[in-house]
């Protein structure tokens, strides 16, 4: 993609534009999620209105919140390990920004068309664990350290079902490339009928459920929020963070929710493709981002619905669920998918 609307772009111009779009792709869904789900949906589920004062229906509340965080003092504990403490939120954000790279939004609208695609996404998502460990350790606070150890145990445990849930899709599509996975769904047929392609949520429903549960745990959201359990650990590894640095962790959490729901949309719901148009049609370069965003909003609705509904797990229940239920289920799903792939 070296010409956009017949304008020739040099390599650095193209890269610059991609970086700006990447920044938008991380921040816009994060902001949308916070307002639509965290402020409004959660309030409605609890029979209250949520923010109503700032702007129409409180829609400017987000700006007020960000402004509030910008003004706060950046407090660093006296005994903290300052460089590590300061760097930790950046490490978490780097993981999010690398994740968004593989998300395709149209036949030519992508950041990088990586051959390893989804494998890259799963690999870089594990970088955030190091940021969390750094944050917990450097805070010089027992609650923080306990929180980050819990977070690490949880992220390692749930990374396995996350990876294994994806394997089913990869076997069916025959590729790791995110773009090719979209094409495989768009050009797929259900018993010879290609009207709606073959979105893998139909055949990989178990994989989709496992993926969503594992994503919920990866985001350390309720019911998997043991690492930041406020009744036990204050706020876990976030305890000592304030102002901008807390905001960065917060953005990281919601942006990662956005990227993961985007990845789920690509893997299971057909990504930027909608029935009715040919999958290589140029229209999808314009339409695709909107379609993908719509599907992302649907998947993230599920994620936040669970978040606001279920109470917190106990630590041992949480580990048991991962190792004794999700992983065997994912392995069974892989076995069945592999057998059917060869047999059919």
């Amino acid at each position, binding site marked *: *993609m*070296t010409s956009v609307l017949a304008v020739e772009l*040099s*390599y650095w111009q193209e890269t610059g534009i991609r970086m700006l779009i990447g920044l938008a792709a991380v921040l816009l869904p994060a902001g949308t999620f916070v307002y639509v789900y965290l402020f409004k949906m959660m309030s409605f589920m609890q029979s209250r209105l949520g923010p109503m004062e700032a702007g129409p229906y409180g829609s400017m509340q987000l700006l007020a919140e960000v402004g509030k965080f910008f003004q706060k003092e950046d407090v660093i504990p006296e*005994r*903290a*390990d300052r460089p*590590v403490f300061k760097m930790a939120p950046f490490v978490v954000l780097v993981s999010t920004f690398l994740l968004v790279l593989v998300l395709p939004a149209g036949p030519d609208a992508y950041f990088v*068309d*990586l*051959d*390893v695609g989804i*494998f*890259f996404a*799963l*690999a*870089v998502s*594990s*970088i955030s*664990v*190091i940021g969390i*460990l*750094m944050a*917990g*350790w*450097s805070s*010089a606070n027992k609650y923080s*350290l306990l929180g*980050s*150890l819990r977070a*690490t*145990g949880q992220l*390692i445990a749930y*990374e396995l079902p996350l990876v294994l849930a994806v394997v089913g899709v990869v076997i069916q599509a025959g*590729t*790791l490339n995110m773009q090719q996975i979209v094409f495989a769904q768009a050009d797929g047929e259900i018993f010879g009928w290609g009207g709606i392609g073959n979105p893998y949520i139909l055949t990989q429903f178990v994989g989709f459920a496992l993926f969503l549960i594992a994503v919920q745990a990866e985001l350390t959201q309720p019911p998997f929020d043991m690492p930041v359990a406020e009744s036990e650990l204050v706020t876990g590894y976030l305890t000592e963070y304030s102002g901008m640095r807390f905001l960065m962790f917060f953005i990281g959490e919601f942006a990662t929710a956005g990227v993961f729901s985007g990845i789920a949309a690509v893997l299971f719901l057909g990504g930027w493709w909608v029935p009715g148009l040919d999958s290589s049609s140029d229209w999808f370069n314009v339409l695709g981002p909107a379609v993908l965003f719509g599907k992302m909003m649907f998947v993230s609705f599920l994620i936040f619905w669970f978040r606001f509904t279920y109470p917190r797990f106990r630590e041992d229940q949480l580990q048991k669920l991962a190792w004794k239920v999700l992983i065997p289920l994912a392995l069974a799903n892989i076995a069945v998918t592999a057998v059917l792939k060869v047999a059919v």
Partner: protein
Amino acid sequence: MTHSGVLAEVDWNIARNVFFYLFATIQVIAAIKVVTVKNIVHAALYLVVVLAGVAAQFILLGAEFVATTQILVYIGAVVVLFLFGIMLTRANLGADADLDQDNRVPALLTGLLLAGVLVATLLRTFEDIEFPTETRSTTARVSDSIFSQYIVPFEAVSVLLLAALIGAIVVARKE
């Protein structure tokens, strides 16, 4: 490969060389820091920089799959395991007095010997070979060779890892 037409062959090689030396310098500095810093958590974090540098070098060689595996296995799992273990047992902030050992000379000698052997072997093997401009190894090719040509070593390694895993559980269980 979308940019193959954008960057001329010469430009690409210059860019690759510049970034190779950039990453290599960062890696060497970080590697020295790993063994000289006085805090064990800092050492583990510098190790992350070294391993990330290795991943970057793999990407420069066009080996996407190996680079990604490097990130997943070493940064996402091995170092996290290090940090997890350190923090569960002895996560002191500040300098750690008993981190230094008197075995510096043997360690230095071993390191130099290993480096010498590796450099000699690499030079002998790849003496005049130049990297082609298009060296992207596709994942399909990697998997094809693992599951056909190298299937026996692959299975042997799998069984070995499984045995190690079971052994670890047996050792860890008290009763």
